[in-house]
């Protein structure tokens, strides 16, 4: 017999005395077993994804235990001596680690000011564009760089701003001393942000355009009838409509404060130098994979991971306090 898709959770009334309770749990168990039998095909379908997640996402979480060991790749996993928090103490006493933290936070803060608002402004600019054809052509162009790899993006920047690039060809032709912007630690912050803008500012407008298109035009009309000018309408209608999505993205970005374009930074770290371009992720990479100080790097990575989770939870809490939906809700 085929059981139809009547997959509703069964709610049983709370029974009173132990005997009926026992009967009820037995009944419940039986029901669950029937449910399991009915849904086993579905479970088989989920299995590969579950196994991959367990292996490549959960096993490494346990693998973080090496942060509390003095790990050496040449002895078995359980023979490494446990050293407690020694690695963490070493990381926290390391000036290079704090330099990486500073660089990470500086880049995050800078991009929050100079990257984050750009897609919002672009979306608003684009909103009233008269011809839909021009508009969709523009969208096709500005979405494209998002799909190019960081290697390509930085290669292109190199050809424009690098030592032998277009900018310097121009400077040399005009008798001005050449500067290689791709290796300048002083201006690196601006460079990183402009690369991020070039690659992702266009793609960023997609969410805001969606929110804008959901606004009922009659709201604008009514406001105009009441004498609200263009700016007033933007302030009282457009921006409130964007508010939830802005707050959501802000939370996600804040929760991700300790992550700044890993591939982007890794590709340029050697050219610019660790002083300006070392961020937490590259720090972990160089101290662990390159220098073989496994436990030390794992400790640094674990510090980053734990603080990131706290930041996400904190930012979400903050959103709830402001009465916004946030990333997730208790249900």
């Amino acid at each position, binding site marked *: 017999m*085929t059981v*139809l*898709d009547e*997959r*509703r*959770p069964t709610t049983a009334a709370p029974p009173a005395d132990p005997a009926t309770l026992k009967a009820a749990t037995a009944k419940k168990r039986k029901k*669950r077993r029937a*449910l*399991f039998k009915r*849904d086993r*095909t*579905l*479970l088989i*379908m*989920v299995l*590969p*994804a579950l196994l*991959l997640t367990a292996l*490549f*996402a959960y*096993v*490494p*979480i346990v*693998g*973080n235990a*090496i942060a509390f060991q003095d790990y050496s790749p040449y002895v078995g996993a359980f023979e490494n001596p446990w050293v407690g928090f020694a690695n963490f103490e070493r990381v926290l006493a390391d000036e290079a680690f704090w330099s990486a933290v500073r660089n990470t936070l500086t880049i995050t803060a800078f991009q929050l000011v100079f990257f984050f608002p750009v897609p919002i402004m672009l979306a608003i*600019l684009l909103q*009233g564009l*008269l011809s839909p054809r021009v508009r969709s052509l523009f*969208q096709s*162009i*500005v979405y*494209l760089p998002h*799909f*190019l*790899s*960081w*290697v390509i993006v930085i*290669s*292109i920047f*190199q*050809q*424009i701003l690098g030592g032998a*690039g*277009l900018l310097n*060809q121009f400077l040399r032709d005009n008798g001005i001393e050449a500067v290689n912007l791709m290796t300048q630690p002083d201006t690196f912050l601006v460079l990183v942000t402009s690369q991020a803008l*070039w690659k992702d500012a266009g793609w960023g407008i*997609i*969410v805001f355009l969606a929110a804008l298109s959901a606004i009922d035009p009659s709201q*604008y009309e009514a406001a105009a009838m009441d004498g609200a000018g263009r700016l007033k309408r933007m302030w009282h209608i457009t921006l409130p409509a964007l508010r939830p999505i802005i707050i959501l993205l802000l939370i996600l970005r804040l929760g991700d404060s300790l992550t700044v374009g890993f*591939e982007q930074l890794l590709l340029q770290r050697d050219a610019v130098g660790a002083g300006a371009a070392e961020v937490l*992720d590259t720090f972990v990479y160089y101290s*662990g*994979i390159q220098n073989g100080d*496994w436990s030390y790097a794992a400790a640094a*990575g674990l510090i980053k*991971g734990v603080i990131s*989770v706290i930041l996400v939870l904190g930012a979400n809490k903050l959103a709830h306090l402001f009465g916004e939906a946030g*990333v*997730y809700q208790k249900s």
Partner: protein
Amino acid sequence: MSITTRPRASARPRPPRVTRPAWEEPRAPLEAGARGIVLFGMAALIVVPLYIVVLTSFSSQATITAAGGMVMVPGELTLSAYEQILSGGVVTRAVMVSVGITAVGTLISLVVSVMAAYGLSRPGSYAHRPILFFLLITMFFGAGMIPSYLLVSNLGLINSYWSLILPSCISVFNIFLMRGFFMGIDQSIIDSARIDGAGDWRILTKMVLPMSRSVITVIGLFYGVGYWNAFFNATLYINDSEKLPLQVILRSYVLQGVSVPGQVSVGSGEVATLAVQMAVVIIALVPVLIVYPFLQKHISSGVMIGAVKG
């Protein structure tokens, strides 16, 4: 966290030509001009560098020397850079590696994701809540690079192509996105198939898949672009220079300025000429350009919006 997907508009009507509504005040010419300049400038900033890279890759050495580097005005055009790198050697092999990984990886990712998404999409099915939770957590807490590397190394996958596929095989985000779409499919259709005796496999392949072509295309393309663009995995897990994918080769050619051993001789031991370097950039870029229109077609539909709203 709940995934909300809105049903996709069945047929996209052509947007009507927008005319200024009666209540809106006419735009001041200055404002309209400023708007146009900003938007045009943005587009130019993206198009012009790409144009210069393409042009340089097709330029002869004489033209490049005359221009003093990157070429902005077309001079003598030639295919020689492409002939050089595609006539065997490092780049050709890297292209093959990248194509292979992208094809196999995308296929595996899609199959695993579709199955998981469908398996979790039937309301009230056995243990779906804990499973969703189990998957969701990985979006908030990444284990970190070092333990992941040691795991891959302990599995003996260093220098294996599988190290470029399996660890990044599924994206929980994509699974949730597809699940949201599958849940939006009318339950009565599925019920009627079940009455006719169809099992879940049959329902998935014969009914759900054909109805979800657009989501599956988009997610497949996302996976594909991801595999094609991946660079860090390979620097981490692949030491054997014969197995390096294109992005890594591109990095060493263009960013690190090395001439890879066994490289097509551009004057032996010399750094690759600018045209050859740019040709490698273009080869790394072309597949993305080819699939881009397909992506573009679906981006504007509801699929993406559901995704980003997550």
